Structure formats: structure tokens, C-alpha cells
């Protein structure tokens, strides 16, 4: 059960090896992985839309879609058909090439990141030795796509949204990468497989003080990175209509949606991989563990969306630069202290408490420094 998908792929490759020469087997192996991922991405996206609508509806005491199919399970298909038959409108003064390329350039990186996600034991499509670097590099290409869409639409709301998005992505990229550094320090490798294997036997990094903080910072930055609520300033409908995808309709719009949901999934999957032990877990098959943890994090994203109002631009920037970035730098120091005190063991009291104290202290200090200026309440003695 654990190696079910691996075995299926091996059987397919073996089948081709019997008939064709060896190099065909290599091609078949590549093709199987690509097809699996190319199917998985859209499938995940389709059902994330349904899950999101259902979960948010329940949090607002509504039922959510339940008309198409049992429990609304066919709703994503109905939505897909609707999107496909919609008219594709291109503004007259738009930059036609950029307008066409932007959705493609957004979806492609979102799908590429799936290649380094370890879905289960031996289930990483490409075990890159620079997996994390690949992830950080590819996931920020989406920003270019967003700005292309904004610029190509020739619409002021689109450009506003695009500029917001770029500012936000650049800001949040830094604490995000900084919060990954502790993991790389602890593991000593950039490969996603190595990171997951280092977390065997419940040595999940989230159980260490620096790992917990790193997990929170990484996840928050990831939520900001894929433009999801409460960081969805780029598409703030109350201010700038739909931001960078104001001028998109039909399937192009669906592609933006797809990219957003797929990057939500990959961010959750990456958080799982880096801090929550990836596919490690008892009893259940490894891939099931991965999906359980990932969907747990996705639930938290939806939970954010149902709870939190949108941040203001200055609050967004302040959170990234004045709070998350210093904290993630301190986190690196805490990881080093943990590394030297723990002496190769996962848990020792000193190695747990000293970084914890450092982190709590710096959290408290940063909070004091970030306190907004509150003028004293004026007293009017003559009035009272």
C-alpha cells in the first residue's frame, strides 16, 4: 500500500522494457511522472475550490454548494464547463502578447514546483539536490506573470494590483527564505528527500522551538506569497475590483485561479515537508500522511480566509520587514544554539529551553518595538 504508486510506475516501465529498447523505458518513466503531476495539479485545484467553498460556507453557517452531484461533488466540473464556454474578452488597447502569455507564465511555475514535492516514500518526481532552492526560485517567477497580466491589461486597477503584488512578493520572499535556513542548517542538505528523511522517528522540526517559529513564519509568508486572504491586497475586490486579473475572463481567468490554488497546495506541501515531517508518520501509507498534513494546512488557510479581514498595505509591509524578517534572523541564531547544545540528540532540556528563551525574548522585544505610537488620552479639566 505504501509503495502502491511507485509499483505502478515500475510495472509500466517494466512493461515497456519488455517490448522496447532501454532508452524508451527512461522516456516512459519521465512521461509517467509528468502525466501524474500534470493531472494531479488541476485535480487538486478543482477540488480545492469545492473544499474552500464548503469550509468557508460552514464557518459562516451556510451549507455551500450541494446541487451538482452528491454533496456538490461535481461542482468543479460544472464550473470548468462554465469557464470553458465563457467568452474570452481581450481589451482593445491591451498588449495582446503579454495578455495571452501571463496566465500561462503563472500556471507553469505553480505546476513546476510539484516536481520537487515529496508526496511519499520514493515519490518525489525529481529528487533535485537543490530542491529548496528550486522551489524558492520557481515560486517567485509567478510574480512576473502577475505583473505581465497587470501591465498587459492596460487597466489602472490591474496595474495597481500588479504593483501591490510585486511589492508584497518581494517583501515576503525574504523572511520566507530566511525561515527555511534553520532547516537547511539542521539537515545539511537542500534536497527535499533528505529533509524529510532527517525528520524520521517523530523528529519533526515543528517540535523544536526554532522549528515551530520557522513553520509559522514560512506558512504566513507562503500565504502572502500566493496572494491569499488576509494578504490578498493584489486582488482586493473592495478597492481595485479584482486587481491584476480584472480584464481576464473565461479560461484565462480560470488559469489564474488554478495557479493560486496550486501554489496554495505547494506552499502547504512545502511547509509539511520542511517542518511537519513530510510523509513521515506511523501506520498509514506515507503518501496519505503527506496529503493529510497538507490538507490540514490548507484548512488553516481557509480558516484564515473565513476569519481575518484584509491587511492594509502599510500593515502588510510592516509585518514583513519589521517583524517577520528580524524574527527569522533571530531564528537562525537560535538554531545554531540548538545545534551546539543538543549535540546530535533531537531533544535535550538545555537545547530546548535556551533557544526558546531567546525566541520568546526577541518576540517580546520586537512586539514592544513595533508598538504603534499611542498618544496619551487628553484630559480637559475645564470641560468636565
Amino acid at each position, binding site marked *: 500500500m505504501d509503495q502502491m504508486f511507485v509499483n505502478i510506475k515500475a510495472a509500466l516501465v517494466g512493461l515497456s522494457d519488455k517490448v522496447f529498447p532501454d532508452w524508451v523505458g527512461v522516456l516512459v518513466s519521465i512521461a509517467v511522472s509528468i502525466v501524474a503531476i500534470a493531472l494531479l495539479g488541476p485535480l487538486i485545484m478543482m477540488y480545492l475550490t469545492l473544499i474552500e467553498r464548503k*469550509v468557508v460556507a*460552514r*464557518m*459562516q*453557517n*451556510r*451549507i455551500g454548494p450541494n446541487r451538482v452531484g452528491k454533496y456538490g461533488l461535481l461542482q468543479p466540473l460544472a464550473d470548468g464547463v462554465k469557464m470553458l464556454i465563457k467568452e474570452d474578452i481581450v481589451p482593445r488597447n491591451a498588449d495582446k502578447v503579454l495578455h495571452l502569455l501571463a496566465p500561462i507564465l503563472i500556471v507553469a511555475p505553480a505546476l513546476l514546483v510539484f516536481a520537487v514535492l515529496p508526496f511519499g516514500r520514493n515519490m518525489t518526481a525529481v529528487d533535485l539536490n537543490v530542491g529548496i532552492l528550486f522551489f524558492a526560485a520557481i515560486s517567485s517567477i509567478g510574480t512576473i506573470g502577475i505583473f505581465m497580466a497587470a501591465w498587459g491589461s492596460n487597466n489602472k486597477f490591474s496595474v495597481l494590483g500588479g504593483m501591490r503584488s510585486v511589492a508584497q512578493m518581494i517583501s515576503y520572499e525574504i523572511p520566507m527564505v530566511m525561515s527555511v535556513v534553520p532547516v537547511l542548517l539542521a539537515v545539511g542538505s537542500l534536497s527535499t528527500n533528505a529533509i524529510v528523511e532527517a525528520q524520521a522517528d517523530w523528529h519533526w522540526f515543528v517540535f523544536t522551538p526554532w522549528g515551530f517559529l520557522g513553520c509559522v513564519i514560512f506558512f504566513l509568508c507562503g500565504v502572502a506569497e500566493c496572494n491569499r486572504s488576509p494578504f490578498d491586497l493584489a486582488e482586493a475586490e473592495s478597492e481595485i475590483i479584482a486587481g491584476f486579473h480584472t480584464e481576464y475572463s473565461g479560461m484565462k481567468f480560470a488559469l489564474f485561479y488554478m495557479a493560486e490554488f496550486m501554489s496554495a497546495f505547494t506552499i502547504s506541501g512545502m511547509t509539511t515537508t520542511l517542518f511537519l515531517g513530510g510523509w513521515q508518520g506511523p501506520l498509514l501509507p506515507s503518501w496519505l500522511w503527506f496529503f493529510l498534513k497538507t490538507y490540514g494546512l490548507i484548512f488553516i488557510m481557509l*480558516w*484564515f480566509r*473565513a*476569519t*481575518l479581514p484584509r491587511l492594509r498595505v502599510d500593515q502588510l509591509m510592516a509585518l514583513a520587514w519589521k*517583524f517577520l524578517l528580524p524574527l527569522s534572523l533571530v531564528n537562525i541564531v537560535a538554531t545554531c544554539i540548538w545545534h551546539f547544545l543538543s549535540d546530535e540528540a533531537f531533544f535535550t532540556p538545555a537545547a530546548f529551553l535556551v533557544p526558546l528563551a531567546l525566541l520568546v525574548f526577541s*518576540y*517580546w522585544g520586537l*512586539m514592544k518595538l*513595533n508598538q504603534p505610537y499611542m498618544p496619551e488620552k487628553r484630559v480637559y479639566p475645564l470641560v468636565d
Partner: protein
Amino acid sequence: MFFGLGILRGMNITLMNFIRSYTRKRGSGEIGALTTVQYPEERLPEKEKFRNFPFLIYDDKPEDLRCVACDICAQDCPPRCIYIVKETDEAGKPMKKPAVFDIDFTVCMNCGICEEVCPFDAIFMDHEFEIADSDRHDKLLYHRDDLLKTNEHFHKIRPNDGREVDTRLAEAKEAKAKKDEARKKAAEAKAAAKAKAEAEKATEAKEDKPPETEKESDPQ
């Protein structure tokens, strides 16, 4: 206080709502319970005072309309959506019955003034609201026969009003019957008196000479 405590409190509220939407019974009115009524399959009970489009009431047979085609409702209708033509008998004399009674439901604004002004309790507001149609010219122009509904229907949708109207009508009928009887009696008495007087006159005339002078004294 630490950053983020307010966020955690808010997230607790949404999570409790999420869980309670599954654990608490739908429509129970408890906090967190779902409130949705899935309309075509489920309906809220109709309120008696709910009003929508008017209908014409009849008592036993569709011919026994209470409506007398007095045209008051048509005159008082703010958007003028009622059109009435009186029925005429063979001699061309108008009868107390509508030949045409049309209500254009695309124009009707559901105000209920027709019901209030009707002195004969013949037109009432219905609870029927699902009259949507794709043709706004023919299908939503309701004619007399489409508007007819029984008194039982009225009692079903508005039991209190039905009772009130029935007692009122019964009282009016009784009063009318009494009045009729009184009038009849009076008429009879008058007739009797007249007959008597005439008889007396006749006897007098027989006894005396015919009073020709009296006739001349008449202004005619």
C-alpha cells in the same frame, strides 16, 4: 499582551461555528447551527398576513361570484392593473356580474388595496407567489376564470380572515333578510292599507256620487 491573541480568539469563533454547523441541528436556532432552508424542497410556513396577488372568491359554483363588477377596485388600484367589463343580459342591460375581469400581474404591485376597498368581500390577496413565466404578455395577464378560487381555499390560507369575513357576510345577509322581511311586511301592510282604502273609496264612491270635483282640484 502578545501579538496575535486577538487573531486566535477570532479564529476560535470561526472554528466553533464550523464544528457546530455539523453537530447542531439545522434550523434549531442555536448559535452556530445552520439556518438555511433549501427552498424548492423545503419551505418556511406561510404567514397568514402574507399577501401576494389578488384572486376572486366564489361560494359554491364558479358562476356565483361575489363580485358585482362595481369597478371600485379598478378605480382604486394604484397601478391600474384591473380591468372590468360588466356582463349584459339579452336586452343590453348591465348585470351585477363581471364579463371581463383581468388583472395584469406584471403591473400589480401587491399592495392589497383592492381587498381593502371591496365592499362585497369578493377579492382577496392570495399566498401564491410562484407565477414566474417566460412570457410576460399572455401568461401573466390573468383572466376571470384564472382568478377564481373557492371560499375553502381562502379559509385554508387565511383561516382567521376567512372566519371574520364569513361572520360578517352572514350578519349582513341576516340583516338584509330582516330588512327585506320588514320591507316586505311594510309593503304588504301598505298594500293592504291601500287595498283597504281603495275598497273603502270604492264603497264610498258606490255609496255617493263619484267625486269629480276632487279630480279637477288635482294640479294635473
